[in-house]
């Protein structure tokens, strides 16, 4: 059963150097209160894994603007000037990863797989330094798991067992990130009694969730 904590308590779990998976895409489905608490705390030297770096003043981009991030694995930084500037100045190290590959690599870690073979990136600079494996006459890249100490998840509702449901496209990468963080903190609009969310509607089972934070707090 996940513990219900405040955003401040959640932020205090994070130490410099930690790797954090962030759910969300272009600030939709981003755990804004957790991000705000982390900014207030000021913890730096963090490694961010996210499918896009959002905006300078919205979503995970705020952590980049506030210079708390030392490295990022992401598929897109085009909406965030701060991440581009810090990449160019060498302050931040960015690994650009095709979005589908990023998601499969994160899923692989959460699912206990040692890697996956994908055709994505073959014949491009993405294949640099990676093992190529031919299966039935077609080349694939061996892509390795991406692990992290934490995942910051944004969901719509949780029940007291930590079962999560999401709101429309705010679901996006959240269920995948939730599979993989060693410690998973979910920011939710509402925490309801068990039984309120029908067992068949659950998207992220509570086994993945360690802490719940109320978005309104």
């Amino acid at each position, binding site marked *: 059963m996940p513990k219900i904590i405040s955003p401040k308590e959640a932020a205090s779990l994070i130490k410099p150097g930690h790797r954090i998976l962030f759910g969300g*895409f*272009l600030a*939709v*489905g981003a755990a804004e209160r957790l991000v705000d608490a982390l900014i207030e705390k000021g913890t730096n030297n963090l490694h961010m894994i996210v*499918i*896009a770096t959002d905006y300078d003043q919205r979503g995970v981009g705020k952590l980049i603007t506030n210079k708390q991030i030392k490295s990022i694995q*992401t*598929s*897109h*930084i*085009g*909406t965030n000037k701060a991440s*581009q500037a810090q990449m*160019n100045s060498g302050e931040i190290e960015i690994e*650009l990863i*095709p*979005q*589908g*590959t990023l*998601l*499969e690599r*994160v*899923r692989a870690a959460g699912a206990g797989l040692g890697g996956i073979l*994908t*055709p*994505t*990136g*073959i*014949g*491009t*600079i*993405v294949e640099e330094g990676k093992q190529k494996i031919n299966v039935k006459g077609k080349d694939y890249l061996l892509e390795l798991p991406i692990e992290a100490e934490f995942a910051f998840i944004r969901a719509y509702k949780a029940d007291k067992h930590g079962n999560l449901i*999401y*709101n*429309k*496209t*705010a*679901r*996006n*990468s*959240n*269920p*995948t990130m939730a599979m993989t963080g060693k410690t998973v903190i979910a920011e939710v609009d509402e925490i309801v009694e068990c039984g309120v969310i029908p067992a068949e509607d659950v*998207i992220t089972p509570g086994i993945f969730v360690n802490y719940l934070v109320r978005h309104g707090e």
Partner: protein
Amino acid sequence: MDRKEKRKLIGKRVAQEMKDGDFVNLGIGMPTESANHIPEGVTVYFQSENGIMGVGATPEKGQEDQNLINAGGGFITEIQGASYFDSCLSFAIIRGGHLDMTVLGALQVDEEGNLANWMIPGKLVPGMGGAMDLVSGTKKVVISMEHCDKKGNSKILKKCNLPLTAQKVVNLIVTDMAVIEVTAEGLVLKEVAEWTSVEDVVKATDANLILSNKIKVFK
């Protein structure tokens, strides 16, 4: 022709590639124009890779749902019978070849169907996002772009010189001047825009064009 007219011309022609019941992903920018020109009687289901099948019309001002956007960050609506899924399943759909068509912009395309559309060395690199997966997996990859860049240089080359998005993936190129099919033999000029001519298309194209027997006109 101004850019807006070109965009419309291209969008109209791309839309004619869509068959009833097709599942389609439209890239950001020019490709979205085709959604405005779906032929009558044809129903197409639009996916957005951030996790929706069944993208509806743009919401009216004030009716936006903060939790409902497309992959370009724009507000959208859902059609009746839409579905939401996580990004990982969304890319399984994409990579697994379940989409009938993806329409993307390009910086360069070449005679082998190689595509460059994600980075210019020395410039700001936004990232490939989902483009590499989309073109690696989708059944039919349609490039929707202006025939020449701002300086008037051909974007259809013998060989791409920008970093590739993927190798040998493009099936069809639709520009403001021409419709070109990528075949094992090379690039086949299938159609020419009404406002121009076969000669002008050939002149404006760096790549070798195979002239099909019956070059049609589109507008």
